[in-house]
């Protein structure tokens, strides 16, 4: 499904600030995989996502999505197949547009002619039914500007927008980190529900080690731009948070350092 070969990205190459953010990354995802991604601050997790989504080009390596070489494809072209949600709820939606207009933005790309009406009655009925699955009462507020919603509500709408047309790959970059614990839990369970239902190949960065191990079918850990741990099946099933921290210590010779990381079982 996703095949990354020898991918390297160095920021400020050839200057004193040279920063090898990704070093020779190899990663293959199967269709329907749900991979959680962990690692300390600055390990290169977001950089990996940015590289896959095409925010910048990498100096070496190839990225294949569904057999297609997308290494040099433009970001907005890749976006047809790759959806992303970021930590900051402000990033994923346009605040001055209404809920229905935001949803229409994602819906129209694949479904409409450029000069067709942006939001039709039929669309509204569809959006209403989608929103009602969130159970947040948003189905009655289609004409509300999205900037007036809470962070959790905006993130939930982003989730709908990103999965409405099923993407080949969904990238979630700490998308619940800015939410209060209760809302975070809700958005997280919505995420796993949608991903399971639509069988979307997903990568999710999280600082919550427990949910990293509980959700999905595979966990990778990045450190200094390298994948240092790749946990699947048996090994992953038998691992708890303490076990993972121990593994990290043995591998890297130090404690896992991430100021926001939740190291304990809640």
């Amino acid at each position, binding site marked *: 499904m996703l095949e990354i070969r020898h991918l390297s990205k160095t920021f400020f190459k050839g200057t004193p600030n040279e920063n090898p953010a990704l070093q020779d990354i190899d990663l293959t995802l199967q269709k329907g995989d749900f991979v959680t991604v962990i690692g300390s601050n600055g390990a290169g997790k977001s950089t990996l996502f940015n590289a896959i*989504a095409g925010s910048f080009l990498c100096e070496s390596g190839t990225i294949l999505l569904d057999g297609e070489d997308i290494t040099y494809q433009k*970001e*907005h*072209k890749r*976006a*047809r197949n790759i959806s*992303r949600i970021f930590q900051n709820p*402000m*990033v*994923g*939606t*346009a*605040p*001055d*547009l209404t809920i229905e*207009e*935001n949803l*229409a*933005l*994602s819906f*129209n*790309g*694949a479904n*409409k*002619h*450029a*000069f*067709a*009406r*942006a*939001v039709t009655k039929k669309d509204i009925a569809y959006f209403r039914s989608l929103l009602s699955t969130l159970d947040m009462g948003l189905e009655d507020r289609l004409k509300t500007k999205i900037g007036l919603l809470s962070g959790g509500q905006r993130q939930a709408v982003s989730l709908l*927008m990103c999965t409405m047309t099923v993407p080949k790959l969904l990238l979630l970059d700490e998308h619940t980190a800015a939410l209060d614990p209760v809302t975070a839990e809700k958005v997280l369970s919505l995420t796993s529900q949608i991903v399971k239902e639509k069988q979307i190949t997903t990568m999710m960065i999280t600082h919550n080690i427990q949910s990293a191990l509980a959700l999905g079918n595979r966990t990778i850990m990045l450190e200094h731009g390298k994948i240092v741990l790749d946990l699947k099946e048996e090994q992953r099933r038998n691992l708890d948070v303490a076990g993972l921290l121990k593994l990290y210590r043995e591998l890297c010779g130090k404690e896992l350092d991430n100021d926001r990381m939740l190291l304990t079982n809640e």
Partner: protein
Amino acid sequence: MNIPFFIDSAMLGLQYAMLALGVFITFRILNIPDLTVEGSFTFGIAVSGILTANGHPFLGLLLAVLAGAAAGIVTGFLQTTCGIHPILAGILTMSGLYTVNITVLGGPNVNLLDCDKFFTFAVNLFPYAYRTVVKGVLILLICALAVFLLSLFFKTAFGLSIRATGNNEDMVRASSINTTKTKITAIAIANGLVALSGGIVSQYQGFSDINSGSGMIVIGLASVIIGEVIFGRRSVTIGIISAVVGSVVYYLIIALALSANIFSSNALKLLSAVIVGITLAFPTFKTKIAEYQMRRHALKTRSR
């Protein structure tokens, strides 16, 4: 009170309404202050002027729109593909256009008084009606058509992506929308409208002058802002209507100031600049004042 003078001013406002619409599109929808306006307005004047002088008033307006749009495409290209700061991109196009405009016009100004204009046919059609009324109704119809078409356009799928580009470019870039395309299109439409305004104004005035464009960005901004004061910032459609109304009200205010002898016509540009400056600074001052009061309140309660 000098009624005909105010009617003329309102009509002037309608002629400049297309300018306000162009500025509304870049400044409010795209969220980019676009200085191309100063050049593209004159570009419209020049193209429409030279064609009117040669007996093609309608073609003049049509080509004015295309000329303005072309200028917009240049600015858009500089901003997106070349990565030049939006303000600088606009200044570059505007500055370059001066040469283009004076070449097109073939001199600093052209007199159109004796030529057929685009409204001549309508005036001839209703020989017993007042000339001013016919001209007024015609410009009103043009404005209504522009408002109608633009509101429709910004409700299409593509129009929505333009609005989203101005509202949250990061999001749009991460979705499958090409922001280079949305930006260039919007800037082209905006400057097409501005040039149309220039073309209409010069035909109504009966002459084309190379220096008519200076200060147009401020007049456009003032109109947009006055419209927002009246209608508030709501939907796009309301925004589009309020830009037109804002333009008319702006010229009425100017007329009032002139007829009351408060200002000489030389003071108009300064007056407009001050109005726009104050209005744009308003939100910042509001927060500053709120912060000041908060601090004073905190100091008072602490010293107690």
